[in-house]
Structure formats: structure tokens, C-alpha cells
């Protein structure tokens, strides 16, 4: 069975999203590897559930976290899109939302939080600081992009990003979840950064 390119989100049209080619690439990969009828149907059901109840683990260190609070309040009410549940334990969360500058002292803490999360897990980098170091790129104590430490699924630029940008980024994550294979290993994850280094190991053999 062919997996359709669509990763529908009720609140926004497919054409209005950018970076659709990336998701289409994921779908192509799925089809190339062979998508069975039963597995695909079950996957679609599971992914529908997963993508509509994304539980976040918040690592909010500075300004971006305040904008996230605005998302939780009535005006920008993120409950409409299914990501209002936030957990404070890594064991219960699907996505690590990193908001604010990550310094050398916080970096091991963030790595540990990521390692403690259960698969399949995702990372959203919010704000200029997490993406590249932002205005503090020349500092002696700031990590220049968290993707040096953990793999990142969605980048939300801004300083801090507007609530609308948060929606857009988190919807992109939902769309990614929707076209993933769930049973039999999650596809499209970059294994290079995995703690046990599966990819590197494969290369050696």
C-alpha cells in the first residue's frame, strides 16, 4: 500500500506549510522500504494518537519559557492543538522542549534529561540561543547550538519566538510524527547522536 504524502493538520492547509519536501522525502523512504497494508494502517492509527497528544518535557532556562507560558494561557491556548500537557519527569515525556540559552554548566544536565527519556523521543530547539548560541555566540560559557549535543527535530527561531511560531514548529513536529513508521523502529531518526552510537558501530563492522 502506498503511503500518501499528506500529513494533515486540521488547523492549517498542507500547501501553507514550508519544508514540505522534507516530509515528502520521509514518505518516499517509507514507500521504498515497503509499506505493508496492515502495518501501515496500524501505524496510522497509532501516529494519529501520538501526534495529537504530544507530551513535552520543558527545559526552560530563560526568556523563551515566558513566551511558552503565554501559550498555556487563554489567548494562545495551545490545548487546541494537543500539546498542552507538560510533564516534569523525562520518563513521561515525548518531546524535550529546550527553551533558552544552554550553558556549559547546563549541557550535561540537558544530555542526561535526553538520555532518560523513552523512545521514540523528539527534541525541539526554541530560540536563537539553542539553535546557534544566538547573541551569546562569543561567550566563554555558552553552547553554540544544542545540536552539537543531542539531535534536534524542529528548530523554532526567534528571540524569543512569537506564540504563532511555537504553533508552527510544534505542528511541524506533529506532521513528522504522522508520516513515521512506528512499529518496527522509527524511521528518519539520525542515529549518529544516539548514546550507544548504533550508526558508528554499523560502520565499523
Amino acid at each position: 500500500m502506498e503511503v500518501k504524502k499528506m500529513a494533515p493538520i486540521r488547523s492549517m492547509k498542507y500547501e501553507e506549510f514550508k519544508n514540505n519536501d522534507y516530509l515528502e522525502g520521509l514518505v518516499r523512504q517509507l514507500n521504498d522500504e515497503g509499506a505493508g497494508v496492515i502495518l501501515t494502517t496500524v501505524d496510522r492509527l497509532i501516529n494519529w494518537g501520538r501526534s495529537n497528544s504530544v507530551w513535552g518535557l520543558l527545559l526552560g532556562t530563560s526568556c523563551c519559557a515566558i513566551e511558552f507560558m503565554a501559550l498555556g494561557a487563554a489567548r494562545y491556548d495551545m490545548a487546541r492543538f494537543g500539546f498542552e500537557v507538560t510533564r516534569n519527569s523525562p520518563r513521561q515525556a515525548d518531546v524535550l522542549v529546550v527553551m533558552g540559552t544552554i550553558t556549559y554548566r547546563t549541557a550535561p544536565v540537558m544530555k542526561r534529561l535526553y538520555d532518560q527519556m523513552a523512545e521514540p523521543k523528539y527534541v525541539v530547539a526554541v530560540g536563537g540561543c539553542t539553535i546557534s548560541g544566538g547573541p551569546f555566540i562569543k561567550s566563554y560559557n555558552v553552547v553554540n547550538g544544542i545540536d552539537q549535543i543531542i539531535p534536534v527535530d524542529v528548530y523554532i527561531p526567534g528571540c524569543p519566538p512569537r506564540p504563532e511560531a511555537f504553533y508552527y514548529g510544534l505542528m511541524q513536529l506533529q506532521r513528522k510524527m504522522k508520516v513515521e513508521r512506528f512499529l518496527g523502529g522509527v524511521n528518519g531518526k539520525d542515529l549518529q547522536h544516539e548514546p550507544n552510537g548504533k550508526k558508528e558501530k554499523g560502520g565499523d563492522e
Partner: protein
Amino acid sequence: MKRDEIIKTIEGAELCPGNAGVVKVPLSQFRKVAEGLRYDKESPMDFLREVVGVDWGEEGLGAVYFMESTVTGETAALKVVSDDRETALLPTVSDLWKTALIKEREAYDFLGIRFTGHPDMRRLFLREDWIGWPLRKDYDMKSNPLRLDNEINADITREYRLRKDGTLEGIDHPIFGENDFVVNMGPQHPSTHGALRMRIGLDGEVITKVDPILGYIHRGIEKMNESLTYPQTLGMTDRLDYLSAHQSRHALCMCIEKAAGIEVTERVKYIRTIMDELQRIDSHLLFYSCLVLDMGAMTPFFYGFREREMILDIFEETTGGRLIQHYNLIGGVQDDIHPTFCQKVKEFIAHLRKVIPDYHRIFTGNVIADTRLKGVGMLSKEDAISLGCTGGTGRASGWANDVRKRHPYGLYDKIDFKQITYDGCDSFSRYMVRMDEIMESCRIIEQLIDNIPEGEYRVKTKPIIKLPEGIWTSAVETSRGEFGVMIESHGDKTPYRMHFRSTGLPLVQAMDTMCRGWKFADLIAIGASADFVIPDIDR
């Protein structure tokens, strides 16, 4: 004047240039002068505003101490230098002012100056295994690469003492008592308002010690500023205390304007003052929302954010930003106010006056709120002054410390407003101070909004701004206390040293005093009532 007295009586004392009136005293005389100022009969200098460590290159390493008398309002500033760069030693003043306990640790962390007699010489912001002293001028910025191994925190701290023969002696002190059960809280914890970490010593359920571990968001802003031109440095202040973005930037602009001799127009003063007060309301609404959220109530959070969004809309129309606005500039503001600004502010104030009674109705008299806030987390007036807890926290202990009254800036000397103080010394007073300040800010804005004079919103400045040599300071009352800027200029287009007085650092230090003897569960409510913002502490 204390300043002239010191210069006259102390041999070798000299006045440094700049508006701060800093007097350089010889190292051997420093301790005597400090004690004399602290225990002066007429105006005891009981409030130590700041200890700023500076690397003066050839001259040596040293610190500048800013102090003020809460009795007479007189100020003094001392500079002391140790010419030995290898083992820089200064006598501690932590027995005279409690706030020096944490500020001297900051100077040690940044510059490697050891304070003899200080009971707790640990690093404050950087990893405990960090090599080198980042604020020294000869520090190699690449000497500490990113490490992902976990940091181990010491349980023993060291005190350095000078023996009579001039040699150094180290004495070890345990941080926690033998029977303490130590619980870790943070840095990833929803109720610490950012990346704050505390180690909490417990005896049963009762807190015996709170040991804050800071620096999880230390970005090295002060060091970065040393290689930025003055207009560029403005970009950093909004990111210190992001709930006082306008006010912090106001302080820095004022400091540079004072030093460079730039006069701003009346219109600018009006705009800045109104923006500062709107920012204060914004911050206090967020304080209300977070305090009640931390205590388990959900509905008031939505109330607070509903009104806060209205302020953000007003900000956005004029400045283009919601949280970080970059509005103040040297010599004025970025752009003129939006044509509908005045009308919208008036509508908002009228609306806010209508809804604040709802805020009180839903939370203030509530039985849970009362039992968890009233009489909990006591901070006496003496402690508040000694610890340097400015802002609402100090005013809730009966210390009238509002910078807007003490050293008026902007238009605060021309308008009529009350300084809110409470004598309760508890969490409830700290809450009430902020709620009352919202109403007071409304009054201030109402007096100004109809009278904004015509004029330039920005005066022309030179393309390259250079400040005359000297130490320059300014201070404003931000949403959570006294925010100060100190610039040491050597006549270049970049500052030689730029330091920001953190409003939250004394509050975090005071957590130990406020929480001792109370139950573990009270810690969250006490912390929320103290209202600190972590990026402002760590800088």
C-alpha cells in the same frame, strides 16, 4: 561628607574620576575604613549595594564597594587594589554586611581574588572544575571547552586566613551539618522560575539550610560587553531580567548619557517613565500568576495573563516586540509612540482598575492562601538591609528602599506617588506590596499619559560614542529591586569593565534566611513570593 573625610584622614587615599565618587584607599587601611563607615554614629553605611571585582592590569586586581546609609541616604564608594596578581588577597567584609558573602564569591569566581576570613570560598557561577578566571584581561577564551561529564559538587568549602607571619592558612568547613538530609531541587524544576538549583538540608521536614547553586544560565554578558561598543552593549540588558526589559535598558542608557553628557528631551523622559511603569504592571501580573500557580491554583493564572496580553499588545504596537523590545537607545528611544498609544493605555488602565478587585476576591482572602503565606518565611528589616534585598521583598520588611524616591530619575521627582511598604516581613506582605504597586503604577501613568509634550523622540548623538575616563554609575527601580550599572571607562569606544547589579542575587541568598525553620513545602511559596528571575542573577 564621608568622602572628603576619608581623603583627609587616610594617608594615600585619592578620589577617582567619574560620577560615582569612588575613593581609592590603600589595602592596609581598607578594613579600618570599611568598619568605620559601617559603624559610623550619624550615618552608618548599613546597605552594601555592590562589590565589583575589577582587573586593573598593571595596577593589580581589586574591587569597588558601593555602600549607602539607610538612615541619612548618604553614599560612599571605596576602591581597593591588591598588586599581587598571583595570590590576590583582600580582607573580607562579610562580617559587616551579609550580602558580601555571595558578592565576594562572585568576585572570586570571576577574577580569582581570595577574600581572607570569608567562610565559603567556592565558585559561584562557573563549574567547580573550571580552570582560570574569565574576567581577567589575560584570560584565554578557549581554555575551557564544552564538557559533558557530570559535575561533582563539593561538600566541603574552604576558608582562607592570614597567619601573623603573612602566610596563608586554609580551614575546611562542611557545607551541611552531620545530621542533615540533603535534597536536590533543580535546575530542571517547574517551580524554580528558571534554571535555579538549590541543595536543601532537611531535619525531618524542617529546612536547616538552603545552598543555592547558580550559573546554569551564566552567559558571561559582562565579559562580552568589554569587546562591544556602547550602542552594541544595549542589546544584552533586555535579556538579563526579561520582565524588566525597559527598566534595565533605561539604566544603561542613563549611565552612558550621564557620562557622555547627552541631555534627553522631556518627551523621551515621559515615554521612558510610562514604559517603565507599564513594564512593572506586566511583571507584577506575571508574579501574581506564577505565585498562585506554584501554590496550585489555576484560574488566577488565566486572569493575570489575560491582562498581561493587553500590555504586550500595547508594547508591540510601539516597539515591535512582545517580551524583548529594544526600545531605549542612547539619547532617546527607537521610534515615536504609536498614534493610538495614549488612548489604548488609558483604556487599559480603566480596565485594570475594574478587574483587580476580582484578583483579590479569588485569591487574597482565600483560606489556603492565608495559611500558606501569612506569617511564613520571615525576613526581618535588619536582615533585608544587610542582605541587600531591595525591591518589593525589602519593602515588605518595612525598608523603604525605592530608587524612584531615593535617587529620582526620569520624571519620578515631578509626580505624586506613594512608596508601598508593609511591616509583615512575611510572604503575604511580599505579595501585597506587589499588588498595591500595580495600583500605584496606574496612578503614575494616569498623571503622565495626557501631558506627553511634543518634541524629539531621540536626540542626535555622535556616530562613535566614547565615554570620558572614570567610573560611572546609575540605578533604576526595576520590577524586582534596584538595578545598577557600573561602567569603568578608559576613554575608548568600548567599556573597560561593565557591571550590572543583579536584583535577584541577594534574594536567592536570602532564601536561606527566609526558609530556615520552615517546612520543605513552604519553600516553593517563599521562593515565589521573593520573585526572582534567574537570567538576571546569573548574567
